[in-house]
Every structure is written in structure tokens, then in C-alpha cells.
């Protein structure tokens, strides 16, 4: 037996030629004896007993490789069609395995890997503060204060060809399509140069738009906003876009593929950083203690990321020292904190993928999904291998006969690979077709949770290459076993025995693998489902039925803080008057949306003043708010109108804390009357007095209760508030009525984010719901595959043991023994599978725990 075709073909051709020569020689001889030529040839042929032109090996020799392959493919199709059941199962396994993998691969690629569609993304870096930050807000080091951006211009002159800052903002926009609240991005003059992109229409924000504070009401529209709100108007440049009641001029449209630096929050338009105060973005431009910007830079030609980072450190050290002399520097910091602050570095991170890849919460779910899909693919491959092996075993005798007749090992393996390759190709193609469908299903979940993420379900070249690789791996994984089995067929043994035990050990191993993988997927699905169920069952700590929510932001509709507060009060009154509404209240920050306000606090406890070790969720609310939600004041009292003294948003002197706050920070003393404050001032007593303790409920997240702090809404509100109303009627009836009332009150105001509170929670739990649903789907599919696997192997071994069972029963063994024999066998496989799965599941469980 030989490997490959080369020598085979050569000697085949020679033999054929030799035989033909012999026929001719014999014919010549007969002619010499006087036989007519034609009859001589016929007799010669007959004499040799065969016609070389009909010889199969001869036919093979004359075929070119393409015909050769075509023949193999035809043969494979015939074989596959002769067993439609297993072919369908194999195809289904492959389609789902490859389809899901392709979809998740595409998702992972778009969210975690792919660089921004910008010029030379590898040259773009993002500045990041690594070390101790002193100031407002915690979070990632890549969020920086504006003065740092201004300062880095000077040392960055030779290192970077351009430097830019951007910050997110939410504003009320009025376009020809009507008013709406939407995400904006505020950028400095060199932002688009740094990204290296060119406008689709008009021009982009440039340094001339970055000169005078509040003096550049210009906007660049995103391509999709331009096409949906302005109907792709080619003359849009120069038209007006109202942002927070002020007319801005549209100067250009960004290219279609550019969604900003964060695919998770896609802006509809870009405007100048100089308009920061008008947009009410997240911070003040002149405050070094407030950070709200991402700073990107494009490395100058010939400068490496590393060199630039080293070169910038001396300046950053000076910046840190100068910063400590700024008026806003808190005088109360410990030596150790100041030491850590001075140890900080300004790192340069890869900026070519934008800032989202590093910070966004989708990272872990996508990683978990990728891992689970890989398991699923592996399971599908095991199943395919198992079924193909069964097929190979069924053809054992056939293969043996062919081997005996001289078919080479290479020949038979080639046929098997053509067969599994064909399956993988068809399965892969169908899988790729299915991938966008699965992708859209996943995105449908995300859409409910986020607003306008720039991920799509369509596949690009990278993904297709990925899918191809996946299909290739699947072919090799699932084809190698059967091919090896077929090739190692020993003709004599096979021809003698009626069946074969061959391959059973391998198949049993495959089934154990399938059971183990299915169990792992089942258990992780269980974990995800129980997480979700726990969160849902626990709920926010109050009844959510009949609770609806909406938001109004008068501060973005042209009103100052005092007028805004008045408008909000009027809306609250109006909402209470709507038919069906039983009670209503409002809070400055929305509850359970994934964003919110929090800070640490100083507490005057009996044993002295201390700072809380946690970042405490807080909110400012109206009197009756807790009542509306249905959470009890367990000590003291609720806010009343008398607590709502004049003053700006921050002038509180009364506060209500949650039970967890008391448990954690004031466990052994009377909480009422204890004073707390944001700053540790050198006063005998801190400013705010605790007047009540409220039951625990969820302000920021649905997990364990957190210490929370509440203040009354005073006489000013800077932007707006979120309203909550208990309603006997469904949202579909109450919603329009509320909108109408608000419009009656003031047509300028825009009502946004109107939904039921249950929907609000669904949005918050988007990833949990996604993982739980996908996990369940995976587990179901995996269990089905494992069942097919067990069934296949058992059916086979039962068949092989019919004789044994028959003999046993003939000798008087009760029927139950026979059943026991088979069931024990099945159980053994399952137990082995469980034994393999347990450590894996334990690992997964810890991973899951860590993720939570």
C-alpha cells in the first residue's frame, strides 16, 4: 500500500500500456496464422479476458485532478444521501456550531478587536493617568481633566503631530424630524486631524472652531443622523440645527463608517469643545479636579509610543506639582495619598480602537459568549466525528473489500476527507448565511439596553475569513477520526467477522466528551439563569407594577436652574392630575439606568469624623418619593416642604440615609441627628443632618443593598429630572396623556425616556438576559447533541451484543438483566461525562462568581 497517487498512477499507466502491447502482439500472431484482422483483435482481447479501456484504475489515470475530485464529490454526495438522518444531524450540528461562532466572532471583533475606521490607527494613542487621582469621580484613568489636555500641548509638540480631546454630552436637538434627546460628542480643534478622517460633505470641526468660549455654535452631523433626520439633503451645509434651544450651523457631515471613538455611545453630531457650558456636558473646562475627557494624540512620524511616553513624563511630574498649588487642591489629604499621587504616570495606550474597548461592560459578556460558543463548536465537532465514525464503521466491510481489491490507504482517507470536507463546506456556507440572523437576534437584545451602538450583524471579510478557519478546524477535528479508522481497516479481519467492534472505544470517548461539554453548558446556563432569576426575584426592593417613568430636561430647553425647577414642579403637578395616575414624584437622577450620581461622604460618628470607604449612590428627590415607590421610612421622617429651602442644588442641610448606611457606618448609635457632608471642613459640625432612615432599595444596581443617601430637591435644578408615577392605566393610555399635558404647559419641553419601570429593569439587565437566553439555547442544543451521541453508540453496541443477550436469555437470564446490561452501559458513559464535567463546571462557576 502506498501513500499518495504519484507512483500509483505511473505504474498504472505502464501496466496498461504493457497489456495493450500484449493484445496487439497476440493479434499480430493470430493474423500471421491467417485470422482476419478484426477477428484477431477480438480474439486477442477475449484471450486476455478483459478490455483495458474499461479498467477503473486506467480511467483514473486518464482523469485530470479536477475530474478526479468531481468523481469523489459525486461519490460522497451519493454516500451522504444514502443516510439522510445522520447527514441532516451532522449538517445541523455544523450549521449551528459555525453560525453561532461566526456571529459571536463578528461581535467580539467589532467590540474588542477591530480598530476604528480611521487613517493609520496604529499611530493613534490615548493618554491615561496611571496612579492616584485626586478629585471628583472615580473610574478609569483614561478620563482626564481639560487643563491636562491644555498642558500637554507644549511637551507634545515634537512627539505628536496632533492632540485632541473629546467628551460626551446629551442634549435636546430640534431637526426637521422634530425634537429629541440625543448623544453629542464635544471635540477640540484637532480631533478630526488626529483621527485622520475626511468629511463626507462640507468640512469637519477644525482649530478655527476652538477659539472663543461659547462662540462656536457649529455642528458636524453623523452620516446616519444626516440621512434619517435630513433625508440625506445634499445642501445640508449651512442649515440650522437647534441644540438646547440655540441655533447651531451645520458645517459638514462625517463619513458613513465613522461612529466616533466609542461604538457603545454613538454621537449623532460633533460640536466644538468651546460649547461645553451650553451643552451642559459632564465637567468644567477650567477645573483640574473634574475629569470628563478622553485625550487622543497622533504620534509624529518616526516617534514610537514608548519613546513618546518616556519623553512626556518630566512634564507630567511638573504638572502634578503645579496642580497641587491650584486653589482647588484639597488641603486635607494624607501624606500617603499625596505620595501615591506624585508617583502617577501619564501612559500612552493604543488609541486606534477608541476608548470603548478598554472600558465598556460588554467586554466580559462577549468573552463569556466567545468561550461558550467555542465549547459549542467543539461539541458539534465531537458529534460530527461520532456520526461520521458510525458511518465509517457501517461501511467497514465495504472498505475492507476495496482494500483487498487494492485501494490504497491514501485513496480511502482522501474519500473520507472529501466527504467531511463537503459536509463542512455545506454546513459552513449555511452557517455563514445563518450568522447574521443569530447576530441580529443578539443585537436585538443590546438595542433594548443601549442607545445606538455601532455594531451590526452583517459580515465583513475579516469575519468570513474567521468563519472559514472555523469550518476548516471543524473539518479536521471531525474528519480525522473516521478517516483514520477507515484507513486502518484490516481487510482479512473485516471480511471474516460479521460486524466490528472497531471504533467503539473511540466513539465512547467522543460521547463522554459530548456529555461533559453539554453538562458544562447546562451548568453555565443554569448559573446565568439563576443570576437573572435572583436579580429579578429580589427586584429593586419595591413593587414595580404600574410604575412608569419619563424624563424632562428644561435646562436643555433654554431654562436656567430656577426656572427649570419651577417647570419641573409644574409638570409633577400636571402628571398627578392625569386620569389613572395615583401618585407621582421626581428625582434628579434616573434610577437603575446604569448611570447615576455617587460620592464618598464624611460622617461625624460618635467616635470621630471619618470618610466612607465606598462610593455611595445618592439622589435628590421630592417629598413623598419614598411613599410613591413603596419603601418605608423606618426611623425619623420623610422630607417635607420646609426642608426645601432656597439655594442651589448643593445647599442641602437635611438628608435621609438607607438602612445599609446605618448598618455599615453607624451600627451602634442613634443615626438620627448624625451629621454628614461632602468635604471634611474644619468645622465643629458637618453641614447635613440625618433626619430619617429608609428601607434598603436599589438605586444603582440590583445586587446586594448598598448604603445610599438622599437629599431634597431644593429651589434649583441644573438640567432636569426623572419622573415616576403609579398608574392604574397602562402606559399606552397614560403616556400620551402626560405628553399632552407637558405640551400644554410648555411646547418647548421635550419628554424623553418614557417607559414602564419593568422595561427599565429589562434594559438594566440586558447582559444578564442575553447570557441567560443564549446560555439556555446553547444548553438545549448541546443536550440534544449529546443525546444523539449516546443513542448512536448505544444502538450500535446493543446491536453488536444481540447475540450475547440472546445467549444469556436462552440460558435463563431474566429479561431485566438484559435491560440492566444496556442501561448500565449508558449510565457508565454519563457518569464518566459527569466526572469530566465537574471540575470544568467548578472552574466556570468561579469564573462566573468573579464576573458578578
Amino acid at each position, binding site marked *: 500500500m502506498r501513500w499518495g497517487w504519484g507512483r500509483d498512477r505511473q505504474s498504472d499507466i*505502464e501496466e496498461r*500500456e*504493457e*497489456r495493450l*502491447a*500484449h493484445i496487439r*502482439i497476440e493479434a*499480430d*500472431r493470430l493474423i500471421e496464422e491467417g485470422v482476419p484482422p478484426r477477428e484477431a483483435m477480438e480474439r486477442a482481447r477475449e484471450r486476455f*479476458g478483459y478490455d483495458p479501456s474499461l479498467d477503473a484504475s486506467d480511467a483514473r489515470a486518464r482523469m485530470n485532478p479536477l475530474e478526479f475530485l468531481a468523481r469523489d464529490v459525486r461519490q460522497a454526495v451519493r454516500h451522504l444521501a444514502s443516510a439522510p438522518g445522520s447527514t441532516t444531524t451532522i449538517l445541523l450540528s455544523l450549521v449551528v456550531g459555525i453560525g453561532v461562532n461566526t456571529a459571536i466572532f463578528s461581535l467580539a471583533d467589532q467590540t474588542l478587536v477591530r480598530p476604528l475606521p480611521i487613517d493609520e490607527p496604529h499611530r493613534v494613542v490615548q493618554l491615561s493617568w496611571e496612579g492616584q487621582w485626586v478629585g471628583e469621580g472615580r473610574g478609569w484613568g483614561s478620563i482626564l481633566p481639560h487643563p491636562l489636555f491644555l498642558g500637554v500641548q507644549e511637551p507634545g509638540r515634537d512627539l505628536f503631530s496632533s492632540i485632541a480631546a473629546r467628551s460626551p454630552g446629551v442634549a435636546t436637538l430640534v431637526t426637521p424630524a422634530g425634537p429629541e434627546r440625543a448623544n453629542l460628542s464635544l471635540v477640540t480643534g484637532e480631533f478630526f486631524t488626529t483621527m485622520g478622517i475626511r468629511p463626507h460633505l462640507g468640512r469637519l470641526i477644525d482649530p478655527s472652531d476652538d477659539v472663543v468660549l461659547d462662540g462656536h455654535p457649529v455642528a458636524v452631523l453623523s452620516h446616519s443622523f444626516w440621512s434619517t433626520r435630513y433625508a440625506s439633503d445634499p445642501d445640508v451645509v449651512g442649515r440650522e440645527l437647534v441644540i438646547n434651544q440655540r441655533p447651531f450651523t451645520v458645517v459638514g457631515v462625517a463619513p458613513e463608517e465613522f461612529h466616533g471613538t466609542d461604538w457603545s455611545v454613538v454621537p449623532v453630531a460633533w460640536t466644538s469643545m468651546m460649547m461645553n457650558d451650553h451643552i451642559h456636558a459632564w465637567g468644567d473646562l477650567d477645573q483640574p479636579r473634574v475629569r470628563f475627557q478622553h485625550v487622543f494624540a497622533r504620534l509624529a512620524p518616526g516617534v514610537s509610543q514608548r519613546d513618546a511616553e518616556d519623553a512626556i513624563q518630566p512634564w507630567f511630574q511638573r504638572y502634578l506639582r503645579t496642580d497641587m498649588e491650584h486653589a482647588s487642591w484639597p488641603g486635607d489629604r494624607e501624606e500617603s495619598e499625596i505620595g501615591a499621587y506624585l508617583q502617577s504616570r501619564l501612559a500612552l495606550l493604543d488609541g486606534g480602537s477608541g476608548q470603548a474597548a478598554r472600558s465598556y461592560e460588554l467586554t466580559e459578556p462577549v468573552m463569556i459568549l466567545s468561550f461558550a460558543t467555542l465549547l459549542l463548536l467543539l461539541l458539534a465537532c465531537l458529534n460530527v466525528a461520532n456520526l461520521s465514525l458510525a458511518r465509517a464503521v457501517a461501511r467497514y466491510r465495504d472498505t475492507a473489500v476495496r482494500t483487498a481489491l487494492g485501494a490504497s490507504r491514501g485513496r480511502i482517507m482522501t474519500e473520507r476527507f472529501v466527504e467531511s470536507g463537503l459536509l463542512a463546506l455545506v454546513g459552513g456556507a449555511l452557517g455563514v448565511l445563518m450568522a447574521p440572523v443569530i447576530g441580529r437576534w443578539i443585537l436585538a437584545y443590546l438595542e433594548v439596553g443601549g442607545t445606538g451602538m455601532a455594531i451590526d450583524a452583517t459580515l465583513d471579510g475579516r469575519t468570513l475569513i474567521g468563519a472559514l478557519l472555523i469550518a476548516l478546524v471543524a473539518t479536521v477535528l471531525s474528519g480525522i477520526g473516521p478517516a483514520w479508522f477507515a484507513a486502518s481497516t484490516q481487510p482479512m479481519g473485516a471480511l471474516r467477522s460479521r460486524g466490528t467492534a472497531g471504533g467503539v472505544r473511540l466513539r465512547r470517548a467522543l460521547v463522554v466528551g459530548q456529555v461533559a461539554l453539554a453538562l458544562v453548558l447546562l451548568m453555565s446556563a443554569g448559573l446565568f439563569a439563576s443570576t437573572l432569576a435572583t436579580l429579578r426575584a429580589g427586584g429593586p426592593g419595591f413593587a414595580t407594577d404600574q410604575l412608569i417613568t419619563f424624563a424632562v430636561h428644561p435646562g436643555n430647553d433654554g431654562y436656567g436652574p430656577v426656572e427649570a425647577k419651577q417647570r419641573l414642579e409644574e409638570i409633577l403637578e400636571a402628571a398627578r392630575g392625569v386620569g389613572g395616575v395615583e401618585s407621582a414624584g421626581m428625582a434628579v437622577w434616573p434610577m437603575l439606568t446604569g448611570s447615576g450620581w455617587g460620592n464618598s461622604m464624611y460622617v461625624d460618628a460618635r467616635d470621630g469624623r471619618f470618610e466612607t470607604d465606598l462610593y455611595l449612590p445618592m439622589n435628590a428627590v421630592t417629598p413623598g418619593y419614598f411613599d410613591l415607590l413603596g419603601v418605608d421610612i423606618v426611623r425619623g421622617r420623610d422630607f417635607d416642604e420646609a426642608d426645601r429651602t432656597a439655594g442651589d442644588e448643593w445647599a442641602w442641610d437635611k438628608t435621609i440615609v438607607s438602612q445599609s448606611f446605618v448598618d455599615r457606618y453607624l451600627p451602634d448609635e442613634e443615626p438620627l441627628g448624625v451629621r454628614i457632608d461632602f468635604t471634611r471642613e474644619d468645622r465643629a459640625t458637618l453641614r447635613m443632618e440625618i433626619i430619617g432612615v429608609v428601607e434598603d432599595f436599589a438605586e444603582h444596581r440590583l445586587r446586594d443593598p448598598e448604603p445610599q443617601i438622599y437629599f431634597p430637591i431644593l429651589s434649583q435644578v441644573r438640567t432636569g429630572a426623572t419622573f415616576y408615577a403609579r398608574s392604574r392605566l397602562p402606559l399606552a393610555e397614560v403616556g400620551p396623556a402626560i405628553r399632552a399635558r407637558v405640551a400644554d404647559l410648555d411646547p418647548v419641553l421635550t419628554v424623553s425616556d418614557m417607559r414602564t419601570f419593568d422595561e427599565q429593569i429589562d434594559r438594566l439587565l440586558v447582559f444578564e438576559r442575553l447570557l441567560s437566553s443564549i446560555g439556555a439555547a446553547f444548553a438545549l442544543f448541546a443536550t440534544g447533541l449529546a443525546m444523539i451521541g449516546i443513542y448512536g453508540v448505544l444502538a450500535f453496541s446493543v446491536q453488536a451484543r444481540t447475540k450475547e443477550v440472546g445467549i444469556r436469555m436462552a440460558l435463563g437470564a431474566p429479561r431485566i438483566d438484559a435491560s440492566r446490561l444496556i442501561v448500565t452501559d449508558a449510565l457508565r458513559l454519563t457518569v464518566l461525562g459527569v466526572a469530566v464535567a465537574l471540575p470544568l463546571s467548578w472552574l466556570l462557576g468561579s469564573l462566573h462568581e468573579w464576573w458578578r
Partner: protein
Amino acid sequence: MTTQNDGNDRVELLQGTLDVLILRTLLAGRQHGQGIARTIETTSGDEFLIDHGSLYPALKRLQKRRWIEAEWGVSSNNRRARFYELTDAGRRQVEVETRRWHRLAAAMGRVLGPDSGEELA
């Protein structure tokens, strides 16, 4: 196995005998496959009929053992054909095999006794 019984009473070629017949035939000089077959058939008084399904494997086998060599040449009536020729080892092998066959035949003859009729053929 060389069996071609066309209904006439040709003798079946015993297993392993074709090789020695080929070698013996080639002792006379180089010859192509068909020539070898014809020679065996005629010298056996047409008792043997050489099946070509056995001839080629036998020729290959002998080549593999380096007892014969082959090369392409032209036959007497101008046909291209593969000609076979004994190697030195093959020449020695003819002697070995011939001696063995004679011993075997003699031994068989002694055991079986004188020819007792057609029924044993």
C-alpha cells in the same frame, strides 16, 4: 491462482509454479510478457494456459526480488513492448527452483505411485 478451465482438460497451475516457469523461459533469452506466456503454453504442450491476471503480478514480483529486469523495446513485428531478462541472481535462482521442483515432483511421484488413470487428474 492460475485457473482457466474452458471446459477442456488443461492442468491447473500449482501455486508458486508460474514464477519458476517464467524464470526458466527467460533462460533462453530476453522476451516480452506475451512471448513468455506463449512459450510456456507451447512448451507445456498447451496443458497450461497463462492467465494474464496472474502474469503481470508475477512479473512484478520477480522484478521486485531482482531476479528479472525489464525495459521497453520493439518486438519482432515492430510492436513496442516491455522485454524481460534474467539477472545473475535470477539465473542462480532458476537452478535452485528447478532442483527443488524436480525433488518435489520425484517425491510426489513416489508417494502417488504409477499413473492410475484419469480420475486423479
